């Protein structure tokens, strides 16, 4: 039991409720899209599979292929090189140099991106330009990137999108902390769902139980999420201004670790495949990202990043001398030696993305994120239903239902735009995806403006979501993707699992969309009123 004076409890309760009411719907959008974004890699593999799939993220022969490609591009771009796996296991090789763009304090990269087949290393596509442009034309990864951007910045321009999601993260943290403090009987409420005749009270109990169990996770997600949003939009620019006169590149170099002494003399690169094999042996797992600085120079440095090995939380960063191939050191993510700041920053990503133990941790993060959605939505419904005597709050309740149940429909509809755009040969699939999202939102709004009760609209939206989810495996196949027989024969397990999840999701939505009685009664008497004291 947390003992607080009555007026303080009342203040915290007001903060809890208003933080949720003022920002709750946007917060719900960010959390729901974050739940989907947990499986961004799998969504990319599902939407744009390579058949048959790659055996390893970086196959043998990659070093030679990269050397060939370095001779095909503008020599000015042969300075920095990033290598990373993308949708379907495709390998992206981004040769680039750092540039400044007028009116933008953030450093940018300009160069050429090659998309390579993960087995044959054949060039699948090439895109030249500045980082944002080459990213926008990345068709194979576009669906996953669209959903991640929706979560990260709500598709608002930088830095405003990050500021909005950062503030939403702070609001979620406030709701989690105040939710903890206003519990008068926290341990008891963790295990209490009473059987009320009143549906509203039963809903309040379910909200409290889900929120209580979810409190630590909600706090962690909110804290790490607002850190990621504010680090780029406020933290780095402000720190660069105070400590480096506004030079963000200098700040990043200082934080990541001082680069070796400059030596621009040309020198052939050592065996990249050998370095990758050595890194996999040292880290106990294959590389997930490679960064080469000063490619083809005597001071070339190769940093191989691996995900955490089994039983570990933190990834490995192994540094090699690019011209000799010799192992130099294993460095922390930030700085050259271990530090409190580096250690704290290193745990932020695994705690937010839940990617430290593969599919298992991702599934747990998905489930907990789903519970956070439930808590946010039921909290908003409780708040508006309790005030349903007032017409503005009745209208707010309809909006809550519309966003709450319309958003899953809009997210489910997004891949329709992606597949349609790909079939039509559109270079940038963002527009058809936005169109599909907007069409679902318009349909939701149309349903909401009618005289049909909001609860019945919720059922309709859930059933529509089920129908759309069911159509996605078919659309994927119809737009040129492999069928189940081919997928099964070639071991495309991610694709088949995703199809199965979509079909299961369709069934669950259809079942959940069965019409039921609305919780309209307001608790006003005796014992029933007491539990609502701590409801939002």
């Amino acid at each position, binding site marked *: 039991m947390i003992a607080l004076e009555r007026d*303080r409890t009342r*203040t*915290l309760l007001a*903060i809890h409720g208003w933080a949720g009411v003022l920002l709750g719907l946007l917060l719900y959008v960010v959390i729901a899209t974050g739940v989907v974004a947990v499986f961004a890699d799998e969504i990319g593999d599902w939407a744009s599979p390579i058949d048959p799939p790659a055996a390893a993220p970086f196959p043998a022969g990659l070093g030679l292929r990269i050397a060939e490609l370095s001779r095909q591009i503008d020599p000015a771009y042969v300075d920095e090189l990033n290598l990373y796996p993308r949708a379907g296991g495709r390998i992206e090789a981004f040769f680039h140099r750092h540039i400044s763009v007028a009116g933008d304090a953030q450093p940018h990269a300009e160069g050429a991106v090659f998309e390579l087949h993960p087995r044959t290393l054949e060039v699948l596509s090439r895109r030249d330009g500045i980082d944002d442009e080459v990213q926008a034309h990345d068709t194979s990864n576009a669906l996953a990137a669209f959903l991640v951007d929706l979560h990260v910045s709500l598709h608002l321009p930088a830095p405003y999108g990050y500021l909005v999601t950062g503030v939403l*993260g*702070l609001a979620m*943290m*406030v709701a989690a*902390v105040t939710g903890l403090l206003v519990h008068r009987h926290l341990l008891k409420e963790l295990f209490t769902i009473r059987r009320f005749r009143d549906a509203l009270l039963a809903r309040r109990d379910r909200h409290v139980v889900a929120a209580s169990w979810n409190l630590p996770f909600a706090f962690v997600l*909110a*804290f790490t999420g*607002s*850190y990621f949003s*504010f*680090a780029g939009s*406020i*933290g*780095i620019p*402000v*720190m660069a*201004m*105070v*400590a*480096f*006169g506004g030079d963000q590149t*200098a*700040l990043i170099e*200082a*934080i990541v670790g001082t680069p070796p002494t400059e030596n621009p003399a040309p020198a052939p690169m050592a065996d990249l495949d050998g370095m990758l094999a050595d890194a996999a042996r040292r880290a106990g797992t294959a590389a997930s990202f490679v960064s080469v600085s000063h490619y083809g120079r005597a001071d070339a440095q190769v940093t191989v990043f691996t995900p955490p090995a089994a039983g570990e939380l933190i990834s490995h960063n192994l540094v090699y001398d690019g011209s000799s191939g010799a192992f130099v050191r294993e460095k*922390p993510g*930030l*700085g*050259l*030696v*271990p*530090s*409190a*700041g*580096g250690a*704290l*920053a290193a745990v*932020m990503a695994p705690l937010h993305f839940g990617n430290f133990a593969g599919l298992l941790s991702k599934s747990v993060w998905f489930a907990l994120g789903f519970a956070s959605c439930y808590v946010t939505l039921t909290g908003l419904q409780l708040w508006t239903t309790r005030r349903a005597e007032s017409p503005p709050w009745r209208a707010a309740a309809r909006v809550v239902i519309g966003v709450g149940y319309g958003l899953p429909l809009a997210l489910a509809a997004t891949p329709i735009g992606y597949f349609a755009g790909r079939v039509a040969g559109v270079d940038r699939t963002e527009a058809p995806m936005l169109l599909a999202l907007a069409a679902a939102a318009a349909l939701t709004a149309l349903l909401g403006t009618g005289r049909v009760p909001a609860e019945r609209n919720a059922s309709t939206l859930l059933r529509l979501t089920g129908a759309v989810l069911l159509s996605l495996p078919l659309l994927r196949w119809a737009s040129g993707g492999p069928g189940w027989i081919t997928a099964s024969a070639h071991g495309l397990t991610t694709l088949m699992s995703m199809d199965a999840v979509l079909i299961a999701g369709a069934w669950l939505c259809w079942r959940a969309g069965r019409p039921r009685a609305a919780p309209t009664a307001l608790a006003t008497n005796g014992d029933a009123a007491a539990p609502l004291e701590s409801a939002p």
Partner: protein
Amino acid sequence: MSAWSRGLLAGPVVFVTAATVMAGAALWLPAGPAQIDNLVLPIVLFPAIWAALFFYACLDRRLRRAWGLTLLLLLANAALIASRFVGTPAVRP
């Protein structure tokens, strides 16, 4: 009036103060063995700085004291940052 004053304090004033404390911390926090703690810790802990200031601003019964302490933090860190631009660099670039 006091509700508006507290709202102003807990909202924009606390946010600006948290950002200023984060920036100022680059100058007064020890750099640590990797010489990065003064740059990284304030960025990572920004949500915690904001939350501490926000709850203090909401819950302190004496609103004037809350304003005073918050503004003191804001001005002290702002002065430190200003001295960075007019005086000797406090952080090794």
